[in-house]
Structures are given as C-alpha cells and as structure tokens.
C-alpha cells in the first residue's frame, strides 16, 4: 500500500470511528442542544470519512464501503483516542478538544500538500471543522476550571498519537458497526 493510501485510511478511520462514538450521545446528552450538536458533528465526521475512503478506494481499486466495513478490526489505522466509549461528559469533551486540535494541525499540513486532490479535500473538510473547533472551544472555556475535566485531558492526551495496536474497545464497536453487513453474503447489493 502506498504512503498516500495509508495516510488516507488513517484519517478516514479516525473520522469514522469518532463519528460512531459521537453518535452515541444522540438522545442521551445532558442538554438537548448537545444531542443536536454531537449528532451533527458525528454526521460531518462520517461524511469526511466517506470522502477520504473514496479517494483511497480509487487508488486501491475497491469501494468506500468495503474499506469502511469489510476490514478486520486489527487492520484499522485509527488512534486509540477515538476508539474509547466515553459515557462521561467531561471525558467526551476532553477527547473532542484534543482531537480537534490534532486534526486542525493535520489538515493544515494536508492543505499545503503538492497532491492537489488531497489538498482540495483537506480544505473542504477544514471549512466544516471550523464549527467543531468553535464548539470544542466553547466547552473548554466552560469546563476548564473543573478538576474532573483537567484530569480527563491528562488521561487522554497520550492517546492522540497512539497508533501501535488498538484498545480493547475497538473490537466490540467493530462488531456493532459491521454486524448488518456481515449478516449478508459478500457482494450483497444494499
């Protein structure tokens, strides 16, 4: 696999898995506004994953769906940060803040890439991510004086770059995420 395809899969996997985790707040967030916000953020992240998988799929001669759902859990290239199920609000916000920061830096690098297709897509994604960053900033301002939130930031910070192996939480998520697809023979038209 080329370096480009590996990079595309790394970002796409981050966005897909985070999108799934963010969507877990739909219906149970502490505020109605946050039900809407995390559902919308999840939808954006999964949209980014789709566009990135499509670029990778063209290079690898496959489809976005196959890349998203037909690989084994150990083949995913996402960081451990996005894999965790975080039903505590302060930990979810800490992940949101840490991820958006790291993602912004990654997008800046990609926007400057010589690969016009990749740079163009990164610029499009970055326009949408502005709103995720504003949302993260708003919550960081609100929670920064809370010891539980500060502890969550310390706990999760090392996981941003953790890409050697996976946490135990990826496999149960993968089971859930791919169960419908795996229940049908390969090549089923949906």
């Amino acid at each position, binding site marked *: 696999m080329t370096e480009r395809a590996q990079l595309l899969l790394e970002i796409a996997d981050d966005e897909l898995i985070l999108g799934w985790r963010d969507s877990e707040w739909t219906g149970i967030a502490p505020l109605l506004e946050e039900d809407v916000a995390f559902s919308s953020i999840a*939808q*954006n992240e999964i949209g980014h994953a789709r*566009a990135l998988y499509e670029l990778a799929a063209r290079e690898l001669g496959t489809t976005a769906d196959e890349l998203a759902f037909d690989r084994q859990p150990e083949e995913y290239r996402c960081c451990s940060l996005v894999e965790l199920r975080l039903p505590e609000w302060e930990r979810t916000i800490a992940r949101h803040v840490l991820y958006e920061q790291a993602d912004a830096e990654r997008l800046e690098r990609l926007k400057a890439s010589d690969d016009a297709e990749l740079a*163009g897509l990164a610029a*499009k994604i970055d326009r*949408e991510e502005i709103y995720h960053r504003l949302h993260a900033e708003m919550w960081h301002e609100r929670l920064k004086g809370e010891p539980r939130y500060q502890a969550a930031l310390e706990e999760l910070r090392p996981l941003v770059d953790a890409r050697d192996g996976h946490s135990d939480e990826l496999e149960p998520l993968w089971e859930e995420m791919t169960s419908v697809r795996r229940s049908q023979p390969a090549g089923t038209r949906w």
Partner: protein
Amino acid sequence: MVTAEQVWDALAEVPDPEIPVISIVDLGVVRDVRVEDGRVHVEFTPTFLGCPALEVMRSQMAEKITELGAEPEVEVIQDDSWSTDRITPEGREKLRQAGFAPPAPREAGQTTLVQLQSNGFRCPYCGSRDTALENIFGPTPCRSLRYCRSCRQPFEQFKTI
C-alpha cells in the same frame, strides 16, 4: 439536440431537498454543465460532505437530464471551490423569506466564537440585530440556531462555508 442552457433551466427546477424554497442552481452547487454528443456532464459540489441530501440531489438532476433526452453524468467535486458566497442574490432572498438567515460572506474572515455570540446576525423575520446564538449546530449540517430577542422568535442561520 439538448443545449447547456436547457440543462441549466431544467436544473433550476430541482429544489434543495432540505430547504425546498431554494433550487440547487440558486444554491450555487451546480458548478458546470457541458454537453457532448448527447451526454450531459454536470459538476456538482455538496454543501457539506456528510449532507444526506447528496444522493437525492444527484438522482433528481439525472432524472431531469434524462427527461431532456440526454444521458446524464453527474460528477461530485469535493474541494473548497464552493462557498456559501455562491448562493445567488435571488437564493439569499428566498432563504430570508422562508425564515432562514442567509450566510455571512467569507470575506468577513474566519468565523469565531466571539463573532457568533455577538449581535452581528440579523433576524430574517423582523430585521433586528439583537439576536443570540442558541446552538452552533442545527437540524442539518449547514445551519445554526439563533434566537431573536426583539421579536422573540427562534430562527435558523445558514453557516458560512
């Protein structure tokens, strides 16, 4: 033989599936139309990459082109060349009349929290600038929720993209 102009006219009848008061041509998401040997090539940009209306728009465009007796090819462009600045003046007016505040121009600079929380945004119902941010996110990815303190009416604000 179908002409590009006929195709533009036909596409102007395709409503945005989520905000049907505005057409996809008013929205500026149809980027280019080329006609070659009975085939119509359309370049099209999603407002947001995760927009669930994408497939609906794509099939409605294809249907309109087929009705004209041509073979459609709809290409989705996924770069930063579309912005909400491309919504036509007519489109902005239609949005306003339907209770959606049109987006601020990109030239106003990258959106900041301070800006969203200020009263720079005008209520589409009464025109007052005394409006507050309720939620950066709304019922679709492209909209935020605001509240007008003057006429006490919540409204949806198109995000600047």
